């Protein structure tokens, strides 16, 4: 189906064991809100959290946000019930922890399809984000990214990844550099979004800025955040520059022209403009709009 532009500059986890935070999270400026059933919910509370997630997402989901539910691991005792509840809640996507192979993705996709059918939901409408959290996931990122049309993003889970590598997690992040690049390569190859890992020290604003700048420079489309105080800062780094905006405008102009003249393929500055590039251009303009930049005489809020 036609992939629409959805900004993924920031995604905020909120625990489904914490109604107060769930209530508050809808008001911040994150693009994506992830209702979590996994790490932030103790085992004894998984059943209650599932019910809370369902009621909230099904009947009271926030307007204007991309909503996800992170289910428990594929091999956990909670997975089957999580899927039933999560799909029926009708979020935009499910976020799957520790994905390690294309086969796993296909298996999950099939299960989701069955639930969609049973619940009268358009089959294929539930998207998937795969968390890459282990060395196997990094090694197989390429096949995971292309495994299924539902997959629209890969996200790096740095803490678990470094544990699986027996590495030490640092703020500068050299130990996750390869993983970051591997995920980016896989995502670009598959034409999907890549999300960088969490920067967990919420008191270190300078460190967050450096880490986010690096993510942006590497090519990430956004970053997972762990606390609302990180949202505005991270969003600001995924605001396109004037140069990027002008280029995006030009891309869309030739695409539009090509449509009018019924041309099959269009080029700009000698390069082919394909569907993923068109989508990137639309995303750039959406990021600009979200940051308050007025196009057509670059407006007041340039950061």
């Amino acid at each position: 189906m036609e992939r629409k532009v959805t900004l993924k500059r920031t995604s905020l986890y909120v625990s489904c064991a914490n109604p107060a935070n769930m209530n508050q999270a809808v008001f911040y400026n994150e693009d994506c809100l992830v209702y979590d059933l996994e790490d932030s919910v103790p085992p004894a509370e998984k059943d209650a959290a599932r019910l809370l997630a369902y009621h909230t997402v099904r009947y009271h989901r926030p307007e204007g946000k991309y909503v996800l539910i992170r289910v428990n691991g594929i091999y956990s005792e909670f997975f089957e019930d999580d899927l039933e509840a999560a799909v029926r809640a009708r979020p935009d996507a499910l976020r799957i922890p520790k994905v390690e192979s294309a086969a796993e993705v296909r298996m999950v996709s099939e299960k989701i399809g069955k639930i969609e059918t049973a619940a009268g939901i358009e089959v294929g409408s539930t998207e998937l984000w795969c968390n890459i959290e282990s060395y196997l996931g990094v090694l197989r990122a390429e096949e995971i990214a292309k495994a299924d049309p539902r997959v629209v993003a890969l996200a790096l889970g740095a803490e678990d990844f470094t544990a699986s590598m027996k590495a030490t997690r640092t703020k500068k992040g050299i130990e996750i550099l390869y993983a970051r690049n591997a995920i980016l390569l896989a995502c670009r190859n598959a034409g999907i979004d890549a999300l960088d890992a969490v920067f967990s020290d919420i008191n270190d604003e300078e460190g967050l800025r450096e880490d986010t700048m690096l993510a942006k420079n590497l090519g990430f489309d956004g970053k997972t955040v762990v606390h609302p105080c990180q949202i505005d800062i991270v969003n600001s780094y995924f605001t396109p520059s004037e140069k990027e905006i002008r280029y995006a405008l030009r891309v869309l102009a030739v695409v539009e022209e090509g449509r009018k003249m019924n041309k099959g393929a269009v080029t700009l500055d000698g390069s082919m403009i394909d569907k993923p590039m068109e989508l990137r251009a639309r995303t750039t303009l959406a990021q600009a709009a979200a940051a308050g930049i007025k196009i057509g005489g670059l407006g007041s809020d340039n950061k």
Partner: protein
Amino acid sequence: MIINKAGRELPDKIGNYIVKPYQGPWDVEPCNKPVYSNRKPSVTPRTGSKVVKTLKEAVLASGLRDGMTISFHHCFREGDQIIGQVLTAIRELGIKNLKFAPSAVVNIKEPSLVDFVRDGTITSIEASGIRGELGDSVMKGLMDVPVILRPHGARPRAIEAGELSIDVAFIGASAADEYGNATGQIGPNACGSLGYSFIDATTADKVVIVTDYLVDFPCVPVSISQQYVDIVAVVDKIGDSAKIGAGAARMTRNPRDLLIAERSAALIAASRLFRNGFSFQTGAGAISIACTNYLARRMEEKDIKASFALGGMTANIVDMYRKGQVRVLECSQSFDSVAARAMAEETNIIEIDNALYSNPHSKGSLLDKLNFGVLGALEVDTDFNINILTGSGGEMLGGLGGGPDVAAGANISILTIPIVRGRTPSVVKNVFTLCTPGETIAAVVTEAGIALNPKHKYYDELKEDLEKTNLKIVTIEKLRQIAESMTGVPKPIECTDKVVCIVEYRDGTVIDVIRQIKQ
């Protein structure tokens, strides 16, 4: 029954009180008589000292008798220990039927004020709010005579118009000399500005300074001059300095409050009135302090300096002054010890009379020159009316403070409020108690968006200015819907016909009444 201009139903008389219904924020003329005062020329004792050793002596010397009116200021806030001690002394002397007229809200727990009402020491109250046990008891019908609540600016107005007549003013001071010169700026329990007590000092029949720190004559600085003082009572302790206002309040870390604060600062910075020489008032709540900090940042970015900051001062505003961002701090109250002591140290941090700050019927209050005012509230309705007194369960939670004054005076008044507090919606169809009329509110800033008031005189300009930003502007009705979709619709509070509180507006008209809660 009358319906006033704010749409509230009022009886035309409540006991002996004749109701003058609210007619609009700026519509009432001042009373056309010379200002009223109880102060009489007097002869001072040749002993050169007005000091007495006990409060009982002070009360006796003041000539206080049954049925008189006594007053106190609220500058010691939650740390006040004077009111309790003085009332205890009064009770021990068997004096009864007094009108208690403090300058603002009081929530004294030990001894509880309710006890002085229950035993007949106090039979009527005029204040800006009454919290705690006393407030709840009043809501349930404790007092025969309704409590009169006024905003800050209305108190000096009412006194000068002869509506409130003070017999004995008990003025707490953190330092005083033997002849009555007094201040709140120095001493172990310094509270800062005593601005709320100036009107009492100059118009009461008898003035008693209560202090725990006697200094050599003459006391400097002088907030209250000896020429107004009859008696100086020295006690062991006037207050709990920790509760009076400890060190500077740390900026909140609550992400919701920070979001609202940031948006408010952004709104101010987007306005065309945000330019060199502008003025602002923010106040002491968590959101206000954060808003001030964000505003300071924007002032630095744009190299804009303020001519003055007004009202209650906090350490971070003092910082702005010291960095040269604000030329003058006009201080009616000091909310922490940094602000309290800064007045004595800095030339342009000045103590101001509350009347200078907010009296609507004077030759000019500083509010007339205020560009931006940031307010808090318990509820706001879809007409932008504000409730700063009563909670959704019928409890007395707040106080009028200077809210109605700031809203009427500032060019752009901004209400900062979270859209819900727990399961209580903050944006409703009709506020339970109407304290500040909607037409004086320019904008409501919540975490769910900003609503501008189409009936406010600066609406067109503000709308134009904000369209150039990416701030989320929604209708107030949309905010109400969002709140309601989260909390559900609360059951309305049921009241009897008995009026327990009269809520006066700045000009002495009645903007609303509070009726007894049905049990």
